[in-house]
């Protein structure tokens, strides 16, 4: 795996948090706010789970981080920069530092599994000979060695999920966001995926995983951001682990 830092306008080490929400609110159109007064900060290299019931605002919060939505109020700082002050031309370079596992996968159906995983590196301007062995290795690691040629529509839900994870981590992002990454896989694969995230985290990637899987969250022992009705109710403590 290789990092895309060369393309990033700000690649210097951060003294402060890698991500900071300060009084953030968010709404879709004129509807009521789905996120309200959200305040938290993630240190570089930290690992957190984002929990909460359906409709709590987990996916919306992730969208704000990967720059797919904008806050209706408050300030979000990403890599030490106010996201609202980032020029449109610089935003793609910031996105390359964020790996995202989408809940609905967002795979390109006409591209092979191998091409889908190679996509972020290709977009970043990498040369195929520089990354193709990394891509093959990663696909083998997520258990898709025999499916490298396969097109996404021919893959099972679990295979698609693992493919989406491989694509998200292939560029060794500074931040990895995952929206229900173990939702379609069995326990064995869920643990395997969790281990991959932990390994990436050990290499310096900040990880934030939105998950319903309470057992997985508890087993991980990682701190939790708990959202409820758009408000951040708990931050840092892994209640299940500490209470066990």
């Amino acid at each position, binding site marked *: 795996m290789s990092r895309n830092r060369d393309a990033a306008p700000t690649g210097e080490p951060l003294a402060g948090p890698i991500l900071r929400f300060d009084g953030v609110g968010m709404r879709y159109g004129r509807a009521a706010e789905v996120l309200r007064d959200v305040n938290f900060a993630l240190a570089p290299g930290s690992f957190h789970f984002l929990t909460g019931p359906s409709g709590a605002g987990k996916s919306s919060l992730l969208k704000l981080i990967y720059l797919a939505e904008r806050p209706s109020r408050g300030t979000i700082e990403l890599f030490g920069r106010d996201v609202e002050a980032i020029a449109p031309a610089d935003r793609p370079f910031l996105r390359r530092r964020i790996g995202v596992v989408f809940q609905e996968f967002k795979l390109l159906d006409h591209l092979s599994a191998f091409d889908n995983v190679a996509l972020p590196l290709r977009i970043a301007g990498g040369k195929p000979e520089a990354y193709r062995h990394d891509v093959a290795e990663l696909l083998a690691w997520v258990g898709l060695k025999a499916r490298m040629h*396969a097109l996404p529509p021919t893959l099972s839900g679990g295979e698609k999920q693992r493919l989406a994870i491989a694509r998200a981590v292939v560029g060794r992002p500074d931040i990895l966001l995952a929206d229900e990454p173990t939702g379609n896989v069995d326990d064995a694969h869920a643990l395997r995926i969790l281990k991959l995230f932990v390994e990436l985290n050990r290499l310096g990637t900040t990880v934030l995983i939105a998950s319903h899987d309470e057992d997985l969250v508890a087993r991980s022992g990682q701190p939790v951001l708990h959202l409820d009705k758009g408000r951040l109710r708990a931050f840092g403590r892994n209640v299940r682990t500490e209470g066990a």
Partner: protein
Amino acid sequence: MSEMFDAGRWKPGPLLPRRDPRDGSLVFVVAVLCFLACLTALGALAANRAAHGWTSQLTGSATVVVRAQGAESPDAAAGRAAETLAGVKGVSEARALEKEKAEALLEPWLGHEALLDDLPIPRLVAVDLDPKVPARAATLDQALKAAGIDATVDDHSLWIADIERGAGIARWSALSVFLLIASAAGAVIAFATRAAMAAHRETIEVLHLSGAQASFVVRLFQARFAQAAALAGLFGAAGAAIIGALARLAGGGQGLTPVLPVAWIDLLAVVPTPLLAALVAAVAARLAARGLIGELA
């Protein structure tokens, strides 16, 4: 097959599908509109040529009716008038028509039997005018009077205003129809491109969220749709050129009808069609891609 995968030999696949079933309808619609636009362009050129022909035939000539006076014979009077007119500045040629030709001109009205020898049939002089500086009817009249010839000069001015007006209407009508069809073709190409682009929204979103710059995405779609429109433009233009060539072959220099004469050179008018279609589609794709990225951003 999966065991055969060799990462060392892997080459990146196309970021957009090579074939998309939706492209077929786009190509068909663009091809039909380009075909219609090319046909109207050929029609406009033919109408322009016909209109030019009508007016140049009338403005390039005059007819002089000569009446013999005294003992001079009609033929002598006509000969003298032709000689006089040939010397006038702005006249290329003047020739007296034989009695038979004058009678032939009157035959539709008087009938063959009525053309008796003792009828005072006027003699005609056909005058070809210099196309660059044609002599005016008044000048011809003055020259004839100065030579003592009783004659009436008809420079077709009675007809020419109507013919020119008709030619102008034909020209502008053809041009208007062409512009209308060409604009409609452009609008439909743009609309169809935008509709096809909307179908690629998910691809744009994935590229965008994977860190692709707007210019990267725009170039990708611009090239794709320009290529499809160019191909469609080529089909449309080729179809119209075939119709134009058939019209030329079937009717010679006058095309299928003297009203719309087609020349071989007119067929060149369809040549820029693929380029123009590609340009319109590229601009539409560019704007649509920018719009979609703007919505995502």
